[in-house]
């Protein structure tokens, strides 16, 4: 499946500045793997060490959050549009001990 992937500003250093690229895969996992073969280094920003999707990276298929579509197993069809956005997150803390982006908890 050839799928358009919208690349956020923070990852465009890996795509030569391109805002959108094409990659292939039948699932989101395959697609992001293909993306990393085409644009080496990009997967390090998206996945945890165990291969799950980073908690603070949002991936959407046709505007739906993939966490509601089976996460990395979400199926893709020709013409789908995948978007990647870094989560907007933070917080005042206050005795939480601080949240670290890596290794994060995977909400699946």
């Amino acid at each position, binding site marked *: 499946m050839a799928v358009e992937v919208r690349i956020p*500003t*923070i990852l465009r250093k890996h795509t030569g500045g391109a805002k959108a690229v094409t990659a292939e895969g039948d699932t989101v996992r395959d697609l992001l793997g293909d993306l990393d073969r085409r644009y080496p280094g990009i997967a390090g920003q998206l996945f945890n060490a165990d291969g799950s999707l980073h908690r*603070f990276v*949002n991936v*959407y298929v046709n*505007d*739906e*959050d993939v*966490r509601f579509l089976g996460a990395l197993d979400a199926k893709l069809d020709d013409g789908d549009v995948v*978007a990647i*956005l*870094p*989560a*907007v*997150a*933070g*917080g*005042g*803390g*206050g*005795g*939480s001990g*601080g*949240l*670290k*982006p890596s290794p994060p908890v995977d909400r699946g």
Partner: protein
Amino acid sequence: MLELDQDQYEALVAHARAEYPNEACALLAGRGDAVERVYALPNAEASPTFYVVEPKAQLRAMTEMDDLGLDLVGIFHSHVATEAYPSRTDVELAAYPDAAYLILSLADRDAPVLRAFRIRDGQVDEEPVQVAGRQPTPSRRP
């Protein structure tokens, strides 16, 4: 220096108060230093110490900004019990180096304090923020 009009500022304070005791979050769209739209968005964590902009609301807001030719110029959230300064969590999770991070402290609920910062590569630099009709916040801490 980021510029907010009085209505935008009051919308942010009202959003922070409405979400209290949880943290509130919002995205600010504009051109250059001028804020043109405030997107008050849900905190998916509904927590007093942590916020994550609800992912679908984030996408909708960012898509609309793109469609309108606006940039993400600011990311707003409230601290309900601590000062208006980026926490360790804020710095670690700051993924938008081109946006100003605005923090509103409600530690004194009757006297909210708004400050703005650039967070890049773990480094925090305060930036002045101007609310129309008020003195800009100082660019350095007193």
